[in-house]
């Protein structure tokens, strides 16, 4: 039977690089936290701070999307609708039911997570392109509902959500919400990381690689997909609800938009869907670019052209995203892969030479040999 009494050479050789990588990650994390904490004080004006919140919102949405997209490989374009449901749910619970703002947000996120069970039950039965189309249908159906049901949702005129902190001035308001968004993002990242290293996460990744094979190995694939879809929907809805409380004004056309869903996919793909911080990095790049283009060329659809081009470039040249591409580049500077027991001709020669050298040195210290050397 299998035994692993001999600790294999690979682990012992690998350890130093792993420690270096871990240290690098810790440093990166500290820098990231420092940047998040100091940004509100560094932002030169409230507009920049509010643009920062938008980017953070995108990062949160994209990370939430990545629970499904990254782990299982199911590409949903419908996550904009889940955020919209969270936003409207929060808004309606505040305005119609009179719940306190943040209680409303929590309840809305739970309700959307519960709704995600039947939605996922229907949508996750189909794979690939069919799943993408079902997810688009979700957006279109909800847009029609929220536009037409004017007596309840406010229809096309939208819904005004009262601010949770009416006494705060605008810059202070932004500042508080910056940290609320950052906190929720940290929570989403933590949960993603925990799943990533768990057996559950390994099962999800197996589904991404080959669903039938995963099933035949005993992984209950449908239940796994459904659970992670519900987690994803809960975070997405919470992000939508937080947006509603911050922005205070909901328009169904923007809340239930395929474009929003597409942005999330682009951001995650750009950064790298298999990595924890990929969607965050993607949101930083794409979100900032979107804001810039809207400010500079507001009236034109130029921002759409730019994002389309970016998507094409990413898919063509960095199909795994920026982070994996960078990691692969750094890998080249590392000593060659030790996991494959292959030695180059040069290494062989060196080994042999050092062996010979060791032998002659040994011979030099051996008693009796000096005489032979002297004779020579």
């Amino acid at each position: 039977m299998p035994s692993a009494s001999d600790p294999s050479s690979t682990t012992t050789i690998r350890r130093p690089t792993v420690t270096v990588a871990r240290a690098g990650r810790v440093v990166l994390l500290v820098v990231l936290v420092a940047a998040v904490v100091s940004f509100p004080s560094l932002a030169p004006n409230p507009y920049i701070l509010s643009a920062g919140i938008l980017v953070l919102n995108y990062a949160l949405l994209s990370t939430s999307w990545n629970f499904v997209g990254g782990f299982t490989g199911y590409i949903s374009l419908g996550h904009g609708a889940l955020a919209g449901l969270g936003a409207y749910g929060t808004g309606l619970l505040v305005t119609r039911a009179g719940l306190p703002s943040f209680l409303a947000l929590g309840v809305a996120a739970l309700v959307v997570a519960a709704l995600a069970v039947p939605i996922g039950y229907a949508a996750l039965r189909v794979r690939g392109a069919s799943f993408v189309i079902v997810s688009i249908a979700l957006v279109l159906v909800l847009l029609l509902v929220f536009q037409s049901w004017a007596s309840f949702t406010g229809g096309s005129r939208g819904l005004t959500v009262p601010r949770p902190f009416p006494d705060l001035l605008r810059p202070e308001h932004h500042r508080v919400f910056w940290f609320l968004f950052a906190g929720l993002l940290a929570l989403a990242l933590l949960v993603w990381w925990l799943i990533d290293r768990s057996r559950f996460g390994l099962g999800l990744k197996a589904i991404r690689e080959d669903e039938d094979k995963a099933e035949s190995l005993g992984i209950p694939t449908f239940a796994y997909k459904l659970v992670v879809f519900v987690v994803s929907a809960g975070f997405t809805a919470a992000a939508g609800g937080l947006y509603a409380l911050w922005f205070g004004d909901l328009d169904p056309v923007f809340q239930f938009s395929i474009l929003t869903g597409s942005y999330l996919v682009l951001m995650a793909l750009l950064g790298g869907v298999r990595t924890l911080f990929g969607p965050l990095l993607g949101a930083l790049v794409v979100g900032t670019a979107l804001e810039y283009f809207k400010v500079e060329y507001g009236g034109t659809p130029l921002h759409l052209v730019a994002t389309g081009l970016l998507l094409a470039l990413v898919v063509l040249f960095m199909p795994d995203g920026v982070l994996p591409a960078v990691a692969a580049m750094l890998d080249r500077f590392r000593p060659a892969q030790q996991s494959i027991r292959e030695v180059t001709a040069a290494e062989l020669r060196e080994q042999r030479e050092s062996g010979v050298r060791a032998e002659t040195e040994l011979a030099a210290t051996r008693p009796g040999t000096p005489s032979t050397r002297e004779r020579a």
Partner: protein
Amino acid sequence: MTDQALRTEGLTKAFGGVVALDGAGVAFRHGQVNALIGPNGSGKTTFFNCVTGMIRADSGRTVYRGRDITRATPHAVAHAGIGRTFQLCRVFPRMSALDNVLAAVRPGGVLGRLRGARGRAEVDRARGWLTRLGIEHLVDVEARNMSWGQQKLLELAGVLMSDPETVLLDEPAGGVNPALLDRIGGLVRELNAEGRTFVIVEHNMDLVMSISDHIVVFDRGRPIAEGPPSVIRSDERVLGAYLGV
């Protein structure tokens, strides 16, 4: 009854007008190396797919160790104790060999699933299987970067990690070199001696005849003969349908 591992009754499956399984009733023996042979298109792989729940039979029944698994989902069949490999070897291409094998671990309960995937005991067991199959040096290599033969061994390591009582192998010798063939044949016998039942679909007659205890011959979606290698080798219907003499 007790010496039966896997039994089917009247298993039928048609794809459009093509009848792949035509009322197949087969019994494989527990604790033995069983082989399922037959010409291409005789329904062997469809049989595997129906038995493991990957496709649903139109009619008929599948019983494993006295338990009806006709309508069980593939993961439930796996949990019942049946592991399988695929004709066109299937591994998780963008996962390391270690993760490929670890994916077969069956966590218990919600808490078990939330635990780290690389627990010491599991990693040791996974490495053990990789070592036994001779691919331990590839532990950190992604499956897509391996050769065909290495992938076949990796697939087998994953299936064995899930500790199946019965292993269905779909053409284990397909596309592998003679040395590897010997290794796979020897491994099957070894694992059988350790108590695992095998059902092997294979075209390589030398391998089938040398490792099987019991052979079932399929033709046109149903068994036409069964028995030990010595009997099958001289059965006239088999010679006519399969060996073409």
